[in-house]
């Protein structure tokens, strides 16, 4: 199952609930405002730093760039993907769970 989170962890609890209600090993892709969770050195960074230890975590590059952020600022272990990568993830993981 592929989980996507599109809300900032500063604004909503979508990431918290995604982490609580998804199985270890299932993939998470951060998109739209969700990419903020993938940035190093914030008050919310520890959530994704913890998640990369037990599951694949991806972030959508165009949404990072659009917000004036760079790939250098992305937490170690998080893979940056483009739109083609997004399609590949959706195809590989079967069911999709969008945490809104």
């Amino acid at each position, binding site marked *: 199952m592929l989980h996507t989170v599109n809300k900032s962890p500063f604004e909503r609890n979508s990431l918290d609930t995604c982490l609580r209600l998804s199985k270890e090993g299932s993939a998470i892709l951060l998109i739209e405002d969700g990419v903020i969770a993938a940035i190093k050195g914030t008050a919310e960074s520890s959530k994704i730093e913890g998640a990369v230890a037990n599951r694949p975590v991806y972030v959508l590059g165009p949404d990072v760039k659009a917000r004036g952020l760079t790939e250098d600022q992305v937490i170690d272990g998080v893979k940056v993907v483009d739109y083609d990568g997004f399609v590949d993830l959706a195809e590989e993981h079967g*069911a999709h769970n969008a945490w*809104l």
Partner: protein
Amino acid sequence: MAEYEFDTEGVKKTFTFMNRKAPYGTVYALEVLETVLISAAFEQHANIVFADDGVYQLKAGHDTADIGMKNFSPTFGIIEMEKEDADEDEDIDMNWRIIVEKESMEARGLTEDDFKVDVEVIAAAELADIIDASDCVIGG
């Protein structure tokens, strides 16, 4: 314009409907409810899950008279009746579960007795397995 044929005969999937938003403040709750009812029309299996502020959708005693909005909580009574009919009638192959996440319920000071319908209260770790095993997840 292309014509499509939808042959849904015999197609049976398990849907999980995630209700995570409080009622009335946004349209999420009502929209998810609509999709639940559609799945009933097609006799699909469904886990109707309430987590985060979504647990307030099931709270007994909604009174929307003074906010000028329709109280949609009676619909949950219909869902419960549909579920019971399906459970009792062996000709209906439709397994529905109404599930509340234990952690979300407890975080809000609620208990099973606060809800309008009978629910299964399930802890996050077990609920994660149920969600993961479904064919399709509708978020909201």
